């Protein structure tokens, strides 16, 4: 075998100058040869730490070995045992904080870890090209309702169908996928990939009903009557606003609105699709997470002259994935570090013309362990802007919760569910994902979905 390369095998990307003007995927994927080469870097550890670091505990050395052997069906079969959404995870998981962080190869100073995420994507993309097999399971174990068709709900639904449950997923919007569909942009996660992975889950026998707002279209009472158990995975789903003066001006958006217009409603294809997105010259994005990156890079692709991310801490504390940050720099996104908006300035037509910010300094660490940003007096400055997008997180959406007061809520307004079992205060009702934890990652939501499926199986089996 050839000597192991110190660095990950290169995955081709669209050049920044090109991709700044389109919504097509940035990272283009491995071919089989690159995949085999990368797979050969894996040390095939006996007590592989990467498995424990994976929220759904994929047998990572196992599928990597299969790639190295050129056995793609086997590689896929291994991954599919653990994950219902591998093409999605291969693209959006923060591997650098999970499996790749603990990779023994990468622990050696000179080596980068194995590109586990990219290899997962290779296998999953291969699988998406294969014909979908309809499974003919007898669904005789019971009936389960899943509320929300995001990563958590889809994972639970897929696992429950595999276990022999008759599963119905209710989705409030007109298309399934949750954040995968309305939130994460096409250039990071093509919707074609999302649709195909959902089709694979449907082929397991899972029924997805769109246009159903639970709490409005059907009630929790009806769900409790008609199903043996229910998994609530509706996501966080209510945008926070800074609430500073000028929030009502035209040109002020939540990242949820901006990204929903673009992704779910295809606003970047207006007027072929009916929902428009403003074309703005100077865009300011507030926040430093992955959603802020998505919003800023979308605004870049919509043709903005200048896109500035305003973040109240410094580069070191930036919560976004390194890869996203790196891509944003390549796409000429500017950063105003240690800054916080205090007011949106408008003209007499109610249109945004500028963002007034104040400089921040980092003080003592707060509850999260990060140094708390504090405003520096008399340091205000103005950034010219005709659009501002607030990407400062989400709170709990109350539409379902308000109609189901029996369900205990925690002090942050999220569902009070047991971390070990996803059980809630109501027997038979389980909950997981962002509606329990607050906004987190796709893979953590999937981990909760897997756990919920297992617990629901136990609950229904014991009840009968």
């Amino acid at each position, binding site marked *: 075998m050839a000597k192991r390369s110190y660095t990950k095998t290169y995955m081709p990307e669209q050049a920044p100058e090109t991709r700044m003007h389109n919504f097509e995927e940035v990272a283009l994927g491995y071919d089989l040869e690159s995949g085999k080469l990368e797979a050969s870097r894996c040390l095939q550890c006996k007590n592989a730490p990467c498995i424990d670091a994976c929220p759904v505990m994929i047998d990572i050395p196992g599928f990597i070995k299969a790639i190295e052997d050129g056995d793609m069906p086997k590689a896929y079969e291994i991954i599919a045992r653990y994950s219902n959404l591998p093409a999605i995870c291969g693209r959006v998981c923060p591997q650098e904080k999970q499996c790749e962080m603990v990779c023994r190869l990468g622990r050696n100073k000179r080596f980068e870890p194995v590109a586990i995420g990219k290899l997962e994507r290779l296998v999953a993309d291969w699988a998406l090209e294969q014909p979908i097999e309809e499974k003919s399971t007898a669904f005789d174990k019971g009936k389960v309702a899943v509320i929300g068709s995001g990563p958590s709900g889809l994972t639970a639904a897929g696992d429950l169908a595999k276990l022999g449950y008759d599963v119905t997923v209710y989705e*409030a*919007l*007109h298309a399934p996928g949750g954040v995968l569909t*309305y939130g994460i942009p096409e250039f990071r996660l093509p919707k074609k990939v999302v649709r195909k992975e959902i089709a694979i889950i449907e082929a397991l026998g899972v029924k997805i009903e*769109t*246009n*159903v*707002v639970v709490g*409005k*279209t*059907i*009630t929790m009472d009806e769900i409790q009557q008609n199903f043996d158990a229910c998994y609530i995975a509706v996501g966080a*789903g*209510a*945008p926070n*606003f800074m*609430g500073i003066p000028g*929030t*009502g001006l*035209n*040109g002020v*958006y*939540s990242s*949820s*609105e901006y990204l*929903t*217009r673009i992704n*779910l*409603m*295809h606003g970047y294809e*207006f*007027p*072929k*699709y*009916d*929902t*428009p997105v*403003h074309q703005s010259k100077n865009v300011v994005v507030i926040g430093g997470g992955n959603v802020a990156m998505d919003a800023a890079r979308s605004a870049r692709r919509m043709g903005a002259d200048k896109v500035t991310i305003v973040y109240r801490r410094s580069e070191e504390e930036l919560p976004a994935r390194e890869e996203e940050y790196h891509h944003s720099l390549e796409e000429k996104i500017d950063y105003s570090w240690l800054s916080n908006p205090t007011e949106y300035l408008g003209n007499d*037509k*109610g249109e945004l013309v500028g963002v007034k910010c104040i400089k921040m300094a980092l003080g003592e660490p707060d509850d999260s362990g990060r140094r708390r940003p504090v405003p520096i007096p008399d340091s205000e400055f103005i950034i010219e802007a005709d659009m501002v997008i607030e990407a400062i997180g989400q709170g709990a*959406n*109350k*539409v379902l919760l308000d109609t189901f007061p029996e369900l205990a809520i925690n002090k942050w307004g999220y569902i009070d569910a047991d971390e070990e079992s996803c059980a809630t205060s109501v027997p038979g009702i389980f909950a997981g994902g962002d509606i329990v934890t607050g906004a987190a990652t796709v893979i953590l939501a999937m981990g909760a979905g897997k756990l919920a499926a297992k617990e629901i199986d136990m609950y229904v089996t014991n009840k009968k």
Partner: protein
Amino acid sequence: MFKITKMRQLSEKQFEMWVSAPRVAGKAKAGQFVILRTTEFGERIPLTIVQTDPEEGLVEIIFQVIGKSTAELATFKEGDSLHDFVGPLGMPANVKKYGTVLLVGGGVGIAALYPIIKELKKAGNRVLTILGAKTKELVILEEECRKYSDELIIMTDDGSLGEKGLVTNAMEKVFAREKIDMAWAIGPSIMMKFATMTAEKSGVPVYVSLNPIMIDGTGMCGGCRVTVGDAIKFACVDGPEFLGSEVNWDEFLLRSKQYGHEEAESFEAYQKEMADLG
């Protein structure tokens, strides 16, 4: 897909449509709305539920052609299907027994007012109704509203039906004449703003039903936010009904116009496309 079981033209630009949506029909209350999409390319259009037939599983909506999406909706016929139809969304109207209530509707807003008139009457109120429109042809649901009203006043801009004048003129007369315990005003934004001011002058609280630009309609995006009192409210989940006196009308009116340019562009492109098709 949601089948259209009945389609009727009410005036040049106003249409009545019945859609088969049993779950929505079974749950809808006065004041709630649906969101529909014509096709997979369509935008999400919020429309107030006029009435339902729960036994048949039908929902009635009334709309006026104002742009591309509503123009396209008007081309749908009985037997065609809408791509998406979801609801009932928003909070129901605050229906209860107040005593004497005044219901003011303008233009196509009468369609949203009618179910509230009906429920307020059923709740035991004395119901006074004022309907306003530009011309006689645009006064919709006159007989239906009359059926549940103790008194019905009609105002038209040109005097072609009822009295000539604005709904606010009629409101002033009613306020001068008797004590009103609660009022509603539903219609064009500017009408609701002035109806609120008129009611305020007489110290009568008035509910309005706001129709800002919406996308998801489930509280997820915040695009429909309005300033009510000192708070940011989402019309789709906190409303659409709010006390008119608490609404920041100037902001609301400006926000409603924020896509005027794109709306015009889309409508023109659609009209050209239709013309090219002959």
